[in-house]
């Protein structure tokens, strides 16, 4: 049986893994390659690396980093952060990325999804969606959650699938950073009509939260950052608990 996946996410700036501390700025918390290798040894099923450098220099550093990650890491990894063109996706594939994630660019240039997917296969294209509740609706946001769009989450998710995305990585901005659990109902609703896998992101604070989104939320994978980075949850322990509770995970 196909296993549910546990995916640590690493934000990278100028070649270093970083973590925001109470809006006061970013703290460097380690070498992305070493951290990835460590997560992989602990039993992570995949890794996601997001480039949050805003500069051209940072971008170049990130491509070099992707090359180093692919030399070292022997599990699948996804890279993203500001990818806005076919050529950028191609460059990251060439550096060794297994998948890329596109977010804002997919909203403004939806044809990009099909362009990349038809050339490199759907499995290469993960579309990331950030959304928040706005009244009764889930509103899609771009640019790291700063910019509103007129798109609604579920119709956008369906469109993204039709256009050739291989997976959807949905982050609930209502839940992200709260450590109060994932947006389970939204994930369950998404999984009910999508035929591609859904990765849940935003809100993980405990093992129970992760278990809930993989069972009640029907998510195919759970992504988290800070709880792994600060060792609040060890991946080995998380997976042992999930397995004991009947969730199929790779150990």
């Amino acid at each position, binding site marked *: 049986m*196909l296993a549910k996946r546990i995916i640590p996410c690493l934000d990278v700036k100028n070649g270093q893994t970083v973590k925001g501390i109470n809006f006061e700025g970013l703290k460097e918390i380690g070498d992305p390659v070493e951290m990835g290798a460590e997560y992989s040894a602990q039993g992570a099923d995949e890794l996601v690396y997001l480039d949050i450098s805003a500069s051209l220099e940072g971008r170049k550093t990130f491509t070099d980093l992707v090359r180093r990650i692919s030399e070292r890491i*022997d599990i*699948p990894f996804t890279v993203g952060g500001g990818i806005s063109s076919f050529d950028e996706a191609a460059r990251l594939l*060439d550096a060794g990325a297994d998948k890329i994630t596109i977010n804002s660019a997919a909203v403004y240039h939806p044809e990009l999804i099909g362009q990349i997917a038809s050339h490199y296969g759907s499995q290469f294209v993960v579309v990331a969606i950030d959304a928040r509740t706005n009244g009764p609706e889930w509103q899609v946001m771009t640019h790291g959650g700063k910019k509103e769009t007129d798109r609604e989450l579920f119709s956008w998710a369906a469109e993204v699938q039709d256009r050739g995305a291989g997976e959807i990585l949905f982050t609930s901005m209502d839940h992200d950073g709260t450590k109060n659990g994932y947006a389970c109902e939204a994930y369950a609703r998404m999984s009910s009509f999508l*035929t*591609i*896998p859904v990765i849940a992101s935003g809100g993980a604070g405990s093992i129970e939260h992760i278990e809930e989104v993989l069972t009640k939320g029907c998510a195919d994978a759970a992504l988290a950052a800070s709880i792994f980075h600060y060792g609040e949850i060890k991946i080995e322990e998380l997976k042992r608990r999930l397995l004991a509770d009947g969730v199929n995970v790779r150990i």
Partner: protein
Amino acid sequence: MIAIIDYKAGNLRSVENALKRLGAEYEVTSDPDRIRSASHVIMPGVGEASSAMQSLREEGLIDVIKSLTQPVLGICIGLQLMCRMSEEGNTPCLGIFSPSVRRFTEVPGVKIPHMGWNTITGLRGPLFEGIPDGSFVYYVHSFRPDLDESQTIAVTEYGADRYSGALCKGNFYGTQFHPEKSGPVGARILKNFIEL
């Protein structure tokens, strides 16, 4: 020297990196002479089966591959091309392995492509030496090879389908999963192959 066949069907870097991690010497080539004289041959590949077959044809590699006598490993599309035929683009393939390659049966709630970690059981032969039955390996595919009593050396189940996770006939091996992305289990399988 291991030859990785380059037939312009996708990215070969992960396979290269996996061999580098094992300290193996390899070259990426489409030259028939280099392929024939290699100690081992790996045929990776992603993409669509009928166009991948077309690329093999254009590179003049069909008969070269069929006539190889050293250990050969097809990975993912590489394995599918070594089968009898594929429903993807409805193409005849190399016919080294007897099974046909078919699209996964559509079942409500079962997602296609089959993507992620799944188990291999019924393991047989030197490729899986030291690999416990039920180990997890990484899969990404929408088409899968049928079972064959004598050639199937690993079985995987997904949705309504039981299929060949790996095949072997004589010196020819194939894995539908990606050993180069399957952590320590995959590394051991590749090591087993290059030590054949």
